[in-house]
Every structure is written in C-alpha cells, then in structure tokens.
C-alpha cells in the first residue's frame, strides 16, 4: 500500500494489485450528518447529491454521458460520519474517470432547476420511510436514544429542514466541507505507482484545502437512566420490537468483543436469538441485531419482526435470553463460530477492486493502520471468551431503550 499526501492535504492511498484490467477509485470526505446543526439536518446529504447535478464545464447530463463513455458509473453517498463517491473503469480509462471525479468535486455549480429536482426526490424518499417498518422503528429508537445528537436523525434530514435549503446553503457546505484537506483518495489498480501519482497530482493538485478549521462534531449523547419503553402504532399488520443500548465508538475499548457478542446473538441463521426465537419457538420471522462502526457513541440494537399476537411471549423470551447471557455469558463454541464467521465474511467482502479501494479509504478514515487487513484475523483471535462475557455483563447491565411498533387496530 502506497500512501502519500498532496500539498493541499489530500491523503492518497494506492494499492498496486494484480487482477482484472480495471481500476477503482474511492474518494471519502470526512463530512457527514454528524457535522450538521439541527437546522442543517440533511444538508450534508443534499450537497453530496448535488455534486452530480452540474459543474462549470458540464451539465448533469454531460456528467452522466462522460462517465458512461469511460465505462463507469458514478454515485455519491452520504453517511453519518462521512461521504463517499467513486467508480470502476477499464484501466486505460482511469485518467478520464479521474478527470470527471475531480470536476464534480472541485467545480459544482448547484443549478436551481436541479436543486428543485433533488429536493423533490429527497422529500419523496423521506415519505417512503413510512413504508418500511424497520425505518419507522429505528427512526423512533434513534430519536429517543440520541435526542438532539445528529445520529438521532435520518441522514436525508427532515422535511422541514430539507424544504428550507437554498443554493447558498449547499454552496457554503461544499466550500467549507468538501476540501482536499478533509479527503482521502484511494485507488486500486495494477499500474505503476508513478503513473497514479502523476494522474492524481494533475487532477487533484488544484483542489483547495480548507481555510477554516474542520467543524467539531457535537458532544456525545448522554445515556439515559432506567429502562425505557415506547410504543407506537403503524398501518402495518405486523409488529416490530427494537431494543438496544448506546455502545462504544470506534477506537474505544470493547469494540471487537461487542462485535463478537453481536454476531453470537444476532448475526445470521446460526445466531442464538435466530435459532431459538425463530427456528425453535417460531415466535418471530425476522430476528437480527446490529452494532455499526461509528466515530462517536454507537448503538447496539436487537430487533424482531413478528405477528402482534406473539409479541408478548416473544418479548418475555427475549428478556429471559438476555438475562441468561448477562448471567452465564456465551459458550466457547459460540465465540469460536462467531470468529470464523467474521473472518470469513471479512475475506468474502473484499475481493473486488471497488470494495478494496473503499475499505482502504475507510480504514484510513478510522485511523487504523494500513496493515489492518493483515492483522484483522489475529485481532479477532486474540479476544477470549472471558473478555466477550465481561463485555456482555457490562453492556446488558446498562439501561435499555425499547420501541414497540404495533398495528393501529
């Protein structure tokens, strides 16, 4: 892995790897929902969408046409902690792909007609959250758990804030946040490093670094005291139970232990909760859990999709199972299996140039070492069952927040 920095602060990562004659690039900018104030809810995501809507040199249509003419497609995503974009192209087209990428990053013009289109699109997508029982449950859960903290809001924002953004807001966000000094460019191809260096310097050298210091993320949310339970009704015929805790941010102690615990309990068809609640007792049709990697206080959430008649008994069962985990912990066999599964999926996930470029940028963003890939298995293996159970005891003793979604009638 080659790593260097341009004078404007852009960090460049290049993995020269054999393989199919394609080249992949990911550009990650350290800006996301987390940097928004409450009135800016959704501005990071809106701005990201608008980068494809026209530059000084190209209309939205021309951006699409040019990128397709090099055999690539370009998409931009905004997440809680970061935004990213990138493409994959036949290797000989990498320079032209990079030219388009640089163009949309450096020179977007935010045309009014495109702003209107994008706004309508975002508002429609916010409305469509009502069509997903998971989104209904999690929006409420996160809102309660995080309060005013940005993790408590959908990345797309809120209808009232999105409705108020003007071209000036978008331009200001772009000017302040989408800066070379805030970005990581990661490339995966088989070309010599000097070639990559030349292309990057040529295209991204003119990118300006930030003039103001980067925005500080807000204070972490304060944990609540005592278990909380909230019920809301929906038009769905099914019911949903979502229960969980605030959890460590990336880099804090206990992350790997909790990852293993999360896999043992809710990771896939062989997980303890899935096997017991769904396979053996038939109490729920959907059983899972998640613990996302976050820069700030994360969440560890377990959820069940089930018929309303079974909610009572399923909830009791779940409580008993969590108590048992807190008291007796998980077994050595379960820990072993979870480790295998995590290591296996880690490998499966990272076969393509596009994913490899993305992960390299992601690890750099998280401040992990460039050899993270090679030490991952060792790190996982070094975690003992006792350590997992100590974390289980501690996590499950925290006050918990539960959201029940039940049918209206």
């Amino acid at each position: 892995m080659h790593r260097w920095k341009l004078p404007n602060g852009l960090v460049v990562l290049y993995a020269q790897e054999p393989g199919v004659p394609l080249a992949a690039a990911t550009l990650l900018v350290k800006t996301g929902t987390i940097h928004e104030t409450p009135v800016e809810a959704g501005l990071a995501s809106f701005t990201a969408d608008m980068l494809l809507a026209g530059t000084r040199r190209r209309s939205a249509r021309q951006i699409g046409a040019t990128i397709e003419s090099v055999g690539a497609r370009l998409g931009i995503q905004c997440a809680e902690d970061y935004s990213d974009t990138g493409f994959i192209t036949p290797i000989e087209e990498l320079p032209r792909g990079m030219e388009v990428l640089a163009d949309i990053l450096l020179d977007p013009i935010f045309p009014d007609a495109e702003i209107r289109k994008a706004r309508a699109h975002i508002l429609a997508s916010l409305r469509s959250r009502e069509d997903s029982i998971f989104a209904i449950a999690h929006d409420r859960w996160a809102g309660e758990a995080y309060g005013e903290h940005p993790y408590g809001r959908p990345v797309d924002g809120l209808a009232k804030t999105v409705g108020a953004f003007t071209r000036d807001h978008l331009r200001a966000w772009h000017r302040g946040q989408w800066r070379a000094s805030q970005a990581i460019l990661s490339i995966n191809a088989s070309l010599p490093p000097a070639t990559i260096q030349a292309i990057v310097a040529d295209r991204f050298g003119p990118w300006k670094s930030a003039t103001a210091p980067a925005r500080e993320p807000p204070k972490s949310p304060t944990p609540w005291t005592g278990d909380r339970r909230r019920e809301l009704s929906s038009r769905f015929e099914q019911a949903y139970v979502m229960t969980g805790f605030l959890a460590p941010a990336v880099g804090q102690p206990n992350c790997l232990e909790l990852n293993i615990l999360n896999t043992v309990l809710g990771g896939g068809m062989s997980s303890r909760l899935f096997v017991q609640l769904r396979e053996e007792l038939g109490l729920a049709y959907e059983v899972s859990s998640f613990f996302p990697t976050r820069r700030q206080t994360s969440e560890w959430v377990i959820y069940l999709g089930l018929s309303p008649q079974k909610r009572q008994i399923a909830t009791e069962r779940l409580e008993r199972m969590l108590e048992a985990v807190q008291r007796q912990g998980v077994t050595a066999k379960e820990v072993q299996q979870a480790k295998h599964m995590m290591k296996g999926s880690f490998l499966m996930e990272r076969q393509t140039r596009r994913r490899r470029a993305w992960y390299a940028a992601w690890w750099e963003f998280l401040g992990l070492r460039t050899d993270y890939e090679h030490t991952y298995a060792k790190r996982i293996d070094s975690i003992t069952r006792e350590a997992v159970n100590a974390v289980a005891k501690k996590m499950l003793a925290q006050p918990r927040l539960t959201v029940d979604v039940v049918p209206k009638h």
Partner: protein
Amino acid sequence: MPVNKSQPVSLAHQGNEGDRTLPQAAFSPLAGLRTIQLGNGLKVFFQVDSRHPLVSVQAWVRVGSVDESNADAGLSHVLEHMVFKGTAHHQAADISRWVESLGGSLNAETSREYTHYYIDVPREGAHQAVKLMSELLYRAALRPEEWQRECLVILEEIKRRNDDPEAVLWDLLNQALFKEIVLQRPVIGFPRTVRNVTRERLHRFYKDHYTAGQTVLVITGDVDERRLETWVRGAFDKMPAGKRERARTPGTTPPAVRHRLMHQAVQQSYVAIGFRTPPGIDPDHEALDVLAAVLGEGRGSRLVHTLRESKKLVWSISAANLTHEGPGVFGIFADCEAARRVEVTRAIRTLLRNLKVSPATPAEILRAKKLLETSWFQGFETIHGRAGLIGSFALENHLERLEAYLPRLLSVTSRQLQEVANRYLGERSWSSAVIEAA
C-alpha cells in the same frame, strides 16, 4: 491471476482530451484453467487463484424446465429445493449453518436449461465443500416428510412471484413470443403441478438427470491442485454415469397472438417488447449485446435518454439481450403511468424504426462497449463470478467462446449493429406484453 503486468505508461499527451487514455492490458479468462474428466464422465475445471484464501465450488447440472413434461412443470426447481433438505450424512439445517458459520454462502438457481449450485467458503472449508457438493448431487435424501413441508414453501414462493409484476410480465412475454408451451411456462411451474409432485417422481427425475455426464464441476480459488484432484476423485468417483440427449425446441413464433395483456391490481403499467433471437452459440450475440447497451443501458442510451430523460414518458426503461442454449429473447422493459402506456409503446416503435435512418454513432458504440467491458471484467473479479462464467460456458461446451467474447464484442462495427437490428428487431418480429390496472 491471469493478467499480464501492465506496461509502464507515459502521460505525455495529458494536454489533449482525446488522447488521455492508457494502453489496454491483456486478460485471459481461461489462463491457468485445468480440466479433468473422471471415469464416469464428470467434467471438472480448476482455476487456482491464491490472491484471497477462499474457494468457490460450483456445480452446473444440465436440467431445467425445458426437460419437464407439462404435467411435471416446476419439477427441476422442486428438486433444487429438496436437494438442500438433507443428504445421506447431513440434516437440512446443518448444511446451511456449516457454510454460514465459516462466513461463506451457498445457494442454487434453476433456469430453463440448467440448475446451478454453489458453495463459497474460506479455503479451510474446501475439502468439506467438495464433499458436501457431491452429497447434494447424488446423495440427497429427498425425504417425504421434508417434501410435505417444502411443498408449502414453494407454493408460497409461486404466490409471491405472482404478486411481482415484473416476473409475471416475463411469463407473458414468453407466451407472446413462443408457440411451444415448454418455452412459455415459468421455470417455477404451477401450483397444481407442484402439488402433484410425488416422492417417487422426484426420485426418478433426480436419478435420470443428476448424472456425471450431465454435470460440470468448477472450482476456483486458493487451493492446491493436486490435493483438490484427490478430493474431487474421492467425492465424485461414485457419482452415477449417464448422459441424456435433450429434445431440441426450435422456438417457433406463434402465428397469430403476439400481444398479451393482463389486468392486475398495479399502480403503474408494465410494458415488455420482445424479439426472438437464435441460440446462444450464434455469432450474432456479441453485436446484440452491444445493441442492447446502445438502446437501453445507462443514461446515455437511446431509450433512457429519449423516453425517460427527454420525454419523461417512463419511470424506468432498459433493454437486454438474454441468451439461452435454445432460442433467446431480446427484450425492452419499461414501467410508466397507466395513461402513458400507448404513447410509450409508440415511442419505442419509432425509436427502433429510426435505427435504420440514424444508425448508432461511433460515440454511442464506444460508450456501450466500455460499459460492457467493465461489467465483463467485474464478472471475473471474484472467485465466485469466475467459476460461474466458466461453468455456464463449459456446460454448453463453448469455453472457447468465453475466451473470444471480449475481443469479438470490441470489434463489433456499426454495420453489424445495423445488420442484427434488421435481422431480429423488425416490425414483423415484434411481440409485446403489458400488465396494467383493470
């Protein structure tokens, strides 16, 4: 990995927009591919790739819905489900859990002409995956009590599929395109035929079709070839021999009814236009692939640009050249507001007719080729994708076509596009299907 190291390149021509490309790198999909044939006729393909410590074990059995009688419609798919429901040595749940617990995945798909199984796992699981695959292929238990349970699952799957307008639209299009019932039928079959499946029938079908001569095994990934060969021989030597001739279905166009309309409780209208194309081995298919991309892949394609971006007639539209061992389908698929449906069909007709007077420009052709080139290479990025491509071409004995595909595609000319458009997409060959609200 079968790739030539790229040459050092110079960026001397940076100033000129048109020259800003690097030399192309060579790539061979078959590099390092080794073939063996067992005594029972099983063909085995290995391609070692040690970049990632993973293996993909895939089997392609030459059986699909074209091999079923009308009374048996859906039997191949039933069998695919039942194969996972336990073998001589393993319970149903153990099979998927073992794979999942390694972080891997296993699954299968049934089509008109083949049934495809795969197990992807970290290399430590390679031997076990080979053994498991052999059990699926000739030691499935097919227990009657499992069939009782699984029958309900499949009936539910049929029901769900009937709620999916795009799946139903595909069935309708095939009814409009072909005279032969066997090409009209959905692969999944019908509730009445699925309900009628007996354990005896299932067993017979398994014995008849899951034989070594009908199967191709492909293994890619990080594994020692010598040991692998020993494992494969150990696991598959006892697989019953046998090869069947498949009855040829020419895919005749029906004489009269070329349009099917169905009313369903849908919000928007779903439209499919289809043209019959020759079997997959026909040399016209690379040109048809390019034509499909010129017409319907990406924002710069004619259909998307004209019907969606400019005229705003459709929510989405695409074109695809779908090949089979037997007759194939060149299809255009769109969904739109109900009120726009007639106008959409007319616009598609006009656009196809215009191909004659305004053939694809060099820029359009280049765009299409580049997009296809990217997806083609992406297909070889994972060990799973590579085993899949090798298997699907090997099953029909056309591995040389896999090697030739990209060079042939890149050499397609504007004149060839014109020729295939005239040959296959003429007004008289037009068939269509529509689903809309009553």
